[in-house]
């Protein structure tokens, strides 16, 4: 039984959290994720759950880890700059002690305090070790509010399944745009049993115990190899992407994720009309949208690119995902289009920019 609602993405996140049986939220406000906290402040206590407005991001992520250790589904929400502050703890709790947890990250563009508008320049941070050391977190990238709801709920499942933190990587557009969505009702979820007991009663007996006795490098390496296997299995089983647009052999494949992928999808009708230079009766266009950013759906991207004469990568950044695309397809994509400064294009602008780039095809100029 689900309810239909109309609200902003940020408010929807909390509906999803309640539905997923999340019982603990701690956080510190930051644009454009603040309304997630505010919704939690309203709805968590009302649903008999705990919401702690903390003095900062570091306290928040540690409290989330504590609640997770207590067996409960727990989460926080922030922007990339808050994620930076959480990165040490994420490495510890997700990477080393393998506690489950969820962080919703609404991207605004820019380094430092950057801008307040949408960006996708948190991709590198989210996908490659937010924080130090050999570890990975699953990164889910919704394209609209409904998917934000669905993936937030699923994030809790994946976190429990693999014992790690899952990042739901949205952006300012998803955060504040209001849309309709359906969501199940709040669900109470009993705590999972936490396996302290092993060894000396530690949650990560292997590594900590090993550190103790110091020189036991073989044991340390064993832990590393176990993690390597874990991440390899996620890379095998969890990549997810969606392809839409024209089937079969196409002229142009656009690779984009999140809000920008959605814009690309709606720009397809316009793009089809810019055909004249390139094909009879308009362009054949497709959009390949990674849904998991880590693990990156390299196979899907490679397969889609194989169908396409031209591959265009689009990002709200100077080019971060493009490296994963290059690696997947074994060459530099033909074109890169991007918007910087905290803004997303309208479908018109998107189509126009891509068309401009395609016009460069003759001269062979790439980016």
């Amino acid at each position, binding site marked *: 039984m689900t309810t239909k609602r109309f609200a902003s993405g940020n408010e929807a996140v909390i509906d999803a959290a309640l539905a997923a049986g999340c*019982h*603990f939220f*701690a956080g510190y406000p930051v644009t454009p994720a603040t309304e997630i906290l505010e919704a939690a402040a309203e709805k968590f206590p009302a649903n008999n759950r*705990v919401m*702690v407005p*903390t*003095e*900062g991001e*570091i*306290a928040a992520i*540690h*409290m*989330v*880890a*504590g*609640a*997770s*250790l*207590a*067996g*409960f589904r*727990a989460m926080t929400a922030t922007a990339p700059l808050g994620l930076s502050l959480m990165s*040490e*703890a994420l490495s*510890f*709790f997700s990477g080393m*002690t393998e506690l489950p947890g969820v962080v919703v990250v609404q991207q605004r563009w820019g380094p430092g305090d950057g801008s307040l508008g949408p960006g996708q320049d948190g991709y590198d941070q989210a996908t490659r070790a937010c924080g130090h050391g050999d570890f990975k977190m699953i990164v889910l990238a919704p394209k609209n509010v409904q998917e934000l709801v669905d993936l937030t709920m699923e994030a809790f499942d994946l976190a429990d399944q693999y014992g790690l933190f899952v990042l739901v990587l949205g952006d300012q557009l998803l955060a504040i745009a209001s849309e309709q969505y359906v969501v199940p009702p709040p669900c109470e979820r009993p*705590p999972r049993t936490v396996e*302290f*007991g092993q060894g*000396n*009663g*530690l*949650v*990560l007996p292997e590594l*900590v*115990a090993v*550190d*103790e006795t110091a020189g036991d490098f073989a044991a340390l390496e064993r832990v590393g190899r176990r993690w390597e296997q874990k991440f390899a299995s996620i890379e095998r089983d969890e990549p997810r992407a969606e392809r839409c647009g024209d089937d079969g052999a196409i002229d142009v494949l656009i690779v984009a994720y999140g809000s920008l992928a959605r814009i690309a999808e709606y720009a397809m009708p316009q793009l089809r009309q810019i055909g004249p230079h390139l094909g009879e009766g308009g362009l054949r266009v497709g959009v390949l949208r990674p849904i998991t950013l880590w693990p990156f759906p390299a196979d899907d991207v490679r397969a889609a690119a194989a169908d396409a004469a031209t591959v265009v990568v689009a990002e709200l950044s100077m080019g971060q995902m493009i490296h994963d695309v290059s690696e997947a397809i074994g060459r530099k994509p033909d074109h890169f289009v991007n918007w910087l400064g905290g803004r997303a294009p309208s479908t018109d602008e998107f189509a126009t920019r891509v068309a401009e780039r395609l016009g460069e095809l003759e001269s062979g100029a790439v980016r």
Partner: protein
Amino acid sequence: MKVVAEPSAEALAPHGFDFCPGCGYGSVLLALTDVVSGLQQQPVFMVDIGCVDFMTAHMPGDVLMGPHGRTSALASGYKRMQPDRLVCAIQGDGGFMGLGAAESLHTAVRGEQITIIVLNNGVLADTGGQLAATTLAGKATSTTPEGRAPQHGPPLPFLEMLSSLSGVAYAERVAIDSALGIRRVRRAIAKAFDVQRSGLGLSIVEVLSPCPTHWRMDTVQSWEYITQSVRSVYPTGVLADRTRGTDG
């Protein structure tokens, strides 16, 4: 004859403790174990990074290590969701009042229902004896080879500051520099758990603990240093006690 004292570390750590000779942390671990043996339930311990790590494997209860300095927040998150368990953060002074000062402070502000044991040895010991907030004026450390000087500021009376907050239900400073001092460690920890159980707020026990290694002294000198120098900057005693409805 009857056994009248049996604080054997063997049960905890068959090969013995990993602390340096004369390190006060062993005494804290023994005291803690003693107190816990008298409790109905074992606490959950959140262990900071530092020489306190050497306790991790020998704690009388479940343990999670956390990033340096922030164990109070970690413990608070746990306690919020498991209000019936005793939860204890145990950290060095560097983590508690240096790196994690903000988290410690706000744990006190919110009066989280946990116990914090602070091991104050006046240095960042685990990394080799660098300046800490608690290093006495003039004392040489590896990052203040000429001694703690005015530009480094004086030692920080953090527990005194926190004790002024109503969220701190109980705060006591004890010292490992005599048999009596060590018995008081035990008593203070027991009291702190009592306070936690009664739900009155945060309880903190700060232990002045000798670190002969980094103080560059023999063990007996390190006790004397506490008695003669450290205690005059960090007086022992109960700094806050709101268990009787009055401020300590």
